[in-house]
């Protein structure tokens, strides 16, 4: 296993586990950027993470444990909806996928695959058109924003009872994380939040963690979790068959179409950051 020497990846906060999934006692093991880490729940508000003998910085946020193998350059991104008192916050899934984190972020941003991969749930033929949407890079917050995304969905969420045109907003506030805001099936004035937090086990393997934060008084936690786990498991074989497994940042490496606008912005954003881990660098 090659050691990670990418200063950008080393300075990031990375998710490693859902807080609620950590057993009350005993040392747990996981892997991040090719390194074995151990972590332990001290109590409900404290988790310690170690790399060998070295104690790593820890942030507990959005239901997950986050750590950093280098020196964190900034705080973890903001997700203010998480604190809204009437939201259901559910750590919905942790799924292992044999792919790089950036490939998984890109798949999360892509609406074009919904009718074919999530048939009957997030999309259905013949409603396959990805309409024109807007993509901007917010330089102050250093994140990508895709707005005005509109897509027909037969079963947009666990709490849905029929097909709707879903409004989507995507945020990419972290090279390995993406947040999706979509029409809430039970309250027109609010947006449901689905966040994808990727743990780079190594350059070509991830643990995909999902936070679901919704206005939904009907569905059980189990309904919400099973919905999300099924969606992730449908993506898994698609992601695992993408080659190369690392995301090529050279603009000539893969040919985008108009629907890939957000992916084009994401690749450019990663190039600007100089991220190396999980990507294939553009030719100089």
């Amino acid at each position: 296993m090659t050691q990670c020497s990418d200063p950008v990846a080393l300075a990031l906060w990375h998710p490693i586990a859902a807080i609620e999934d950590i057993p009350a006692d005993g040392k747990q093991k996981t892997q991040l950027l090719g390194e074995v880490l151990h972590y332990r729940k001290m109590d409900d508000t404290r988790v310690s993470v170690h790399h060998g003998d070295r104690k790593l910085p820890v942030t507990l946020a959005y239901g997950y444990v986050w750590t950093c193998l280098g020196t964190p350059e900034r705080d973890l991104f903001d997700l203010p909806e998480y604190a809204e008192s009437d939201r259901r916050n559910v750590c919905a899934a942790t799924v292992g996928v044999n792919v790089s984190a950036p490939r998984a972020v890109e798949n999360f941003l892509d609406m074009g695959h919904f009718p074919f991969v999530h048939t009957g749930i997030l999309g259905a033929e013949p409603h396959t058109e990805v309409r024109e949407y807007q993509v901007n890079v917010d330089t102050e917050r250093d994140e990508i924003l895709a707005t005005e995304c509109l897509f027909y969905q037969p079963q947009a969420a666990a709490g849905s009872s029929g097909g709707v045109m879903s409004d989507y907003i995507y945020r990419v506030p972290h090279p390995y994380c993406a947040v999706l805001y979509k029409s809430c099936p039970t309250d027109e004035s609010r947006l449901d939040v689905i966040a994808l937090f990727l743990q780079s086990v190594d350059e070509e393997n991830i643990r995909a963690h999902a936070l679901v934060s919704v206005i939904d008084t009907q569905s059980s936690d189990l309904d919400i979790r099973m919905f999300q786990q099924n969606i992730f498991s449908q993506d898994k074989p698609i992601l695992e068959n993408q080659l190369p497994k690392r995301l090529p940042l050279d603009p000539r490496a893969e040919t985008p179409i108009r629907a890939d606008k957000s992916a084009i912005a994401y690749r450019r954003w990663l190039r600007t950051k100089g991220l190396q881990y999980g990507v294939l660098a553009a030719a100089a």
Partner: protein
Amino acid sequence: MIILYDYELSGNCYKVRLLLSMLNVSYEKKAIEFYPAAEHKTDAFLSINALGQLPVIQTGDLTINDSHAILVYLARQYDKSDTWFPISDPVRLAQVTQWMCFADSLTSSASSARLVNGFFYDLDGEACRQEAHRLFRIFDEHLWFNEREDHLWVVPGKTPTIADLACFAYVVLSEEGGISRMDYPAIRRWTDRVKRLAGFVVMPGVFPAGPGPVHVLPANDTFPSAGTAEA
């Protein structure tokens, strides 16, 4: 009404969902979260199945554990054609049993590798993959020789049996465990045939067959046949 204690991502549960669908039997699903909640190891579930394994079916006072036992029960109870579990033919019955045991060895190899890769089980994934490849090689040869005699299914004969479904689940999910089927062309042709059986359903990780004919089994009048006008 049959109640199926089910985990959507479980291959063993998938075997049962497949046969229920192919036999057109209605049932109700109760979701048991295998991962990460390990709900199948909770006291509540252990009182249903002390072994802590999925799937389980309940109907009336009857509880049946073990995917293969459930397949046997469903085939005997609901298959009017008597072809899915051919009890009147001692040779085929023995062959069905043999390949169901083979399917169990796929559970401890191909399925275990999938548990390591996708569900973070602390097992020797590489050893599981090696064993799965040994089994796939044997299975591929078996299916290839069957095809030479115009036998399209796991057990020689005109119709599929529950051995096909028992073997199908962890073969078709093998890539999630890092086991490619690239080198097993007879296996790939067979999985395509299974996908074309009337009543076939997918699960996350399994895609339907491409455009082409649906294989309606002539002997079974419970199947909705593809071209009937009076349906």
